[in-house]
């Protein structure tokens, strides 16, 4: 390891059971208050009462260390977009600090009997809700869509009536996967593809972290991924798994998050040991396993899981000569506009899609540029944050309206929900596009 990597490896101290034990001082000391982080924060941009990332992070941490002072309730307003983390010139672990502060606030200061707490708890545990909903997808879709239900949801629970719940797919991805023959079928198809491609080398194996959205809602994205990866010779494993925990981090429910993280690290860690790399089609899922788990939890094997976790597009970019594969493709798409999710930016995968598709015949692709969608996971699903959420998204909506594209393209399911809500655009995932270009054409 080079000197730089060594000195920047920041060892988190186990967060639980005693949350106040996490020692973030080395991170705090690195802040020289240059305020670069403040210039990128989407909440600070629309909400004058939000003190901004520098306060939420190093300053608040300094203050609370002195004792007496409680965490400021504004931590609840942070989106967890992590843009400040990307912007900080001095490697201050802002995202980590916000996650810890939020957990402290929710554990010690927020009323656990409040409507907000209950609502947040439901959002945080979306995995369970999704599971229930997907058992009876048609009924769920009908019930969630009813005007009366929406009204009740708003009044009783604090969900914004303006938004409609995402439709449940009639069959979950996992259901489709097992009907199709599960991992064994995948191994078989991948082997055939490798033979057809004249590849003899080592096995190509990935384990898929589908998370909640690809399982219950955007099943088409996961299916495209499967067909594309298999056609390139990858066998796919789809183990039992929990939600990635992103909605839990964002709502300060770190106990819940630790529970799912332990299970996921256990499952996927074992696969890594068996020679699998890990992929996700949702950038928030991949960021959780790659960045948030090791920043927050000291679980056995967490670093190995993080090191092997990739965004599905990124993984192919790194391991295959995608440019050569795409060179022959000639596809007939409607013009598209791409939106890079904040969590993709944090991981440095922003730009891969636009770069890859720039020279493909038949593809016309614009970019909305550096804007936050404003839905940010569970944020935009809260009544009291709906207006801020839409105001943050305004710049992105405008960019879509101005761009010539008719279809939107993004890796994040929450960005895509917001794009649909704010612009009415149809949204595709890059996996679907790549499948059309490489498998169908």
């Amino acid at each position: 390891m080079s000197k730089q990597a060594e000195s920047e490896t920041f060892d988190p101290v186990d967060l639980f059971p005693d949350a106040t034990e996490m020692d973030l001082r080395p991170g705090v000391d690195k802040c020289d208050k240059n305020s670069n982080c403040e210039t990128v924060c989407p909440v600070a941009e629309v909400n004058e009462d939000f003190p901004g990332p520098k306060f939420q992070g190093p300053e608040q941490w300094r203050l609370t260390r002195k004792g007496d002072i409680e965490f400021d309730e504004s931590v609840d307003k942070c989106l967890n977009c992590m843009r400040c983390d990307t912007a900080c010139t001095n490697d201050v672990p802002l995202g980590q600090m916000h996650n810890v502060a939020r957990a402290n606030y929710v554990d010690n200061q927020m009323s656990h009997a409040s409507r907000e707490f209950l609502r947040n708890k439901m959002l945080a545990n979306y995995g369970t809700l999704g599971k229930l909903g997907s058992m009876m997808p048609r009924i769920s879709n009908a019930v969630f869509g009813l005007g009366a239900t929406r009204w009740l949801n708003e009044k009783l629970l604090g969900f914004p009536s303006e938004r409609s719940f995402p439709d449940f797919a009639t069959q979950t991805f996992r259901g489709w996967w097992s009907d199709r023959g599960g991992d064994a079928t995948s191994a078989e198809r991948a082997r055939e593809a490798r033979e057809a491609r004249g590849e003899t080398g080592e096995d190509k194996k990935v384990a898929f972290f589908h998370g909640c959205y690809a399982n219950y809602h955007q099943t088409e994205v996961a299916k495209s991924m499967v067909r594309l990866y298999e056609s390139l010779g990858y066998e796919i494993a789809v183990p039992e798994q929990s939600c990635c925990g992103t909605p839990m981090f964002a709502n300060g429910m770190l106990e819940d998050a630790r529970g799912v993280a332990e299970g996921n690290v256990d499952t996927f860690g074992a696969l890594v040991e068996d020679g699998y790399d890990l992929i996700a089609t949702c950038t928030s899922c991949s960021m959780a396993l790659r960045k948030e788990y090791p920043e927050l939890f000291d679980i056995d094997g967490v670093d190995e899981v993080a090191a092997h976790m990739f965004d599905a597009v990124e993984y192919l970019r790194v391991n295959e000569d995608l440019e050569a594969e795409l060179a022959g493709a000639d596809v007939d798409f409607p013009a598209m506009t791409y939106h890079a999710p904040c969590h993709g930016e944090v991981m440095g995968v922003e730009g891969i899609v636009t770069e890859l598709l720039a020279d493909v015949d038949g593809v016309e692709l614009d970019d909305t540029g550096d804007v936050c969608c404003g839905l940010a996971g569970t944020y935009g699903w809260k009544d009291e944050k709906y207006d801020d959420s839409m105001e943050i998204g305004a710049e992105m909506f405008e960019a879509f309206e101005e761009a010539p594209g008719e279809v939107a393209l993004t890796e994040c399911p929450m960005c895509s929900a917001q794009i649909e809500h704010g612009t009415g655009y149809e949204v595709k995932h890059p996996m679907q596009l790549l499948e059309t270009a490489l498998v169908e054409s």
Partner: protein
Amino acid sequence: MAIEDDVLVIGGGIAGLTSAIAAAETGARTRLVTYKQSTLGNASGLVDVLGYAPGDDAPRADPYDALAELPAEHPYSKVGADAVREGLALFDDAVGDDYLGNHSEANALVATHAGSVKPTARYPRSAAPGLVSDDRDMLLVGIDSVTGFDAPMAADHLSAAGVPFDVRGETVRFPKSFPQDADVTRYARALDRDESVDDGTVREVLADRVEAVLEDERRVGFPAVLGDSRHEVVRTELQDRLGVDVFEVPTGPPSLPGLRLEDALYDAAEDAGVRITSGNPIVDYDADGGRVEQVLMDRMGSEVAYEAQQYVLATGGPVGGGIESDRGGVEESIFGLPVEHPDDRYEWFEDDVWGDHAYTEFGVSVDEDLRPVAGEDAQFENLRAAGNVIGGYDFATEKSGSGVSLATGYVAGSEAGELI
């Protein structure tokens, strides 16, 4: 599989951006990889070439005259005056009419937020009416809640510096109140959007408050908070309302003029066809004999290889992250290139904060082609350095930060590109 390009530039500051644009303009397929934001967000947005030669007390009118007096190890001495001109020409092309100063080779003199006079080669259009060579009387306006610009004090300092006009400072209240210690971007956004407040809009009320304290000065300077995305609109409207010229005085970090410059240069790089990858650091490399084969990016625990035929190292100095020190010594952070420094750690800096610190000049040594050397020997035939990662100059004292980055960036990028 490595990700392949012809030229790979490491670092996204002004040096890296210049190198990448210069390389792309030769037709080479060029990628820029960068970790975080550059030091431009801390900098003034002024583009200094050379304000003071060693031993100077007063600023130099002609930076090219002063170039000739620099020691042989200075980066300008390695690349020569023509490289400075080429670097500036590339800059002028890239930023278009957002910047002025290219009508003359002489330094312009700009008033700083501390009330000193700074020699610089290029300045943002928004700073132009504030030039000190202009003899119109000047009013400086501070905003009470914006720290870092004390207008009456800056005015006193300017008067004491002997400027050829009368200058006064006044402080006004911003039309809108923000939580304590609000960031400059909040003021800029309120002005961009011209939000409604009691008695009118932010721009209107601000103009009214300034008009109330304006006497017969013909130009008014504000701290650099006059809008972000619509800053020319904001400044023009204030100008129209006040009936006098309005300018911005560059302020400390985060500096809006610095951030606007960063945006403009990234746009220019994209227009030139540079591929940009940001968010993760390059941490290591593989070499074969005297050639860099590939560099390795750390993506949170695992490494991804980037390969090119030619490389430019533009990772900045001790502030930017390119040069690292610990108790044991100082070295360049990716290739471990040697950095000359006193053995005794206590000689790296002076007790006096403003003293002549050795660390300000820390950086790698290079040959005439900007290849890093150890002793006399170039370390890698296909690696060049640009910007603040190069040692042997003290940009803060001689006022040469961006100029050295432009000149060396131009040379490193265009030479790398031409070898493809």
